[in-house]
């Protein structure tokens, strides 16, 4: 039984890659390379270190932006969940931010902060923050009232009830928000490199597209996706290790 999920996961990868290979060989579009070519291109780019160097550049605004969004976002969301006043003050801002088309905001960011690191960090934050804030807010608001009542009946102080009941109860939804925020942060980082100034992975994508080296372009794109999935998996592990011992033993 234990092997079955892994077998299914592997099968799902095989199916996707086979479909990719097939579509690439047809070809659906001359600009769409098969999976094998992309893999070879990725190997070359790792070997000549261009991929590694590009990642180093891209991950920087991403890491700063996601870290900022996570800290500030969870704090703001939790505060909004705990206090009506904070809710009235902040919720509309984040709902508008979540609904606003990012591409429309980027020119304003460039005007305000130039084309350097700061604008890119801001882009990541704008992408990642709303979903983190709103998820944290909802998680706190939906903490089971029966558990909170239990905390009161056993004489918990407000601080104890927040720390020992509300936050642990909210952690799954907060982490779901962090995962979505991380994925959105990746999108933000790449968008910033495509729209603000070409650096890192965004530069690789633009450059290889301009010289029609499509396997390398796709290798760059696929690297971002793989990395995003890896980080999200890590976040999952971190959550279970830190807050959800009961899910550890359920495995």
């Amino acid at each position, binding site marked *: 039984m234990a092997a079955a999920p892994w077998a299914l996961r592997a099968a799902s990868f095989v199916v996707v890659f086979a479909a990719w290979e097939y579509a690439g060989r047809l070809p659906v579009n001359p600009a769409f390379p098969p999976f094998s070519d992309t893999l070879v291109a990725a190997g070359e780019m790792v070997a000549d270190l261009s991929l590694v160097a590009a990642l180093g550049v891209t991950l920087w605004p991403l890491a700063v932006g996601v870290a900022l969004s996570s800290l500030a976002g969870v704090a703001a969301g939790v505060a909004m969940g705990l206090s009506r006043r904070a809710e009235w003050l902040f919720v509309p801002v984040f709902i508008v931010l979540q609904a606003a088309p990012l591409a429309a905001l980027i020119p304003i960011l460039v005007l305000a902060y130039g084309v350097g690191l700061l604008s890119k960090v801001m882009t990541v934050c704008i992408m990642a923050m709303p979903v983190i804030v709103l998820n944290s807010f909802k998680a706190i608001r939906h903490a089971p009232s029966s558990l909170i009542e239990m905390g009161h*009946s056993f004489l918990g102080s407000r601080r104890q009830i927040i720390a020992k009941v509300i936050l642990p109860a909210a952690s799954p939804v907060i982490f779901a928000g962090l995962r979505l925020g991380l994925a959105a942060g990746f999108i933000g980082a790449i968008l910033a490199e495509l729209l603000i100034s070409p650096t890192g992975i965004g530069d690789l994508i633009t450059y290889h597209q301009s010289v029609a080296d499509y396997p390398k372009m796709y290798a760059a794109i696929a690297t971002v996706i793989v990395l995003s999935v890896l980080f999200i998996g890590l976040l999952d592990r971190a959550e279970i290790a830190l807050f959800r011992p009961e899910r550890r033993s359920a495995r």
Partner: protein
Amino acid sequence: MNRVVALRAGPAVAEPMVEVRGLSKVYPGGVEALSDITLNFPKGKLTTLLGPSGCGKTTLLKIVAGLIPASAGEVSVGGRKVTGPGPERAFVFQDFALLPWATVLRNVAFGLELRGTGRWEREATARRHIEEVGLKGFEDAYPHQLSGGMRQRVGLARALAVDAEVLLMDEPFSAVDEQTRRKFQEDLLALVAGKGKTFLFVTHSIEEAVYVSNRIVLLSRRPSRVSEIIEPDIPRDLPPDRIRRHSAYIDTVEEIWQGLKRYLE
């Protein structure tokens, strides 16, 4: 805590532990749940609240627990007016209210944890009560690994662990099958006989009420008033099967059923 200690002799003259005077509750939105309820709950006895669904039993229990405010009237426990939850009362929740991320041990010790009892002491106490409710060996299990009946017992052990004098039990046996329920009822009788604690018990089952109670308070339909108080005169020293066939038991069940029937239209 200045608790009044009774020095009077004789088991018959149980003084009230919980006094409810002129209690009314109107929920925001206008639902009138309780209307002018005056009741005493004698010390060391088990008093059951019985009444049609939605009549306000949970509301009454939660007001006594200090979890929701009354609209009018007052409640006192051990002679002191209730203004909020207190260490002399412990609640057993109908939906268990266990922390899913905490082990049985931490759940049972949680009341003590919130009170700031040291880890070693509260875990020793919790282990005793886990054993008492028959869950020895499950200290490190999580609630989702337990059956409904076992979770119910975790909730009971948590309430027992804080050693409150008044136990407020809201349909504590609702989630278990009939066999387990009967076992729990017998355990409850032993608990009432053994510890001198005062029990406020809510159930939907007339048979259960008659079997476990020293007093049964029948509540009318919403807005709830006390319609009748019955003290089943059942010899508690008989074995369970004899009690259930005792004429006093059967007659009391019938009497209550006749009393409640008129609320069914």
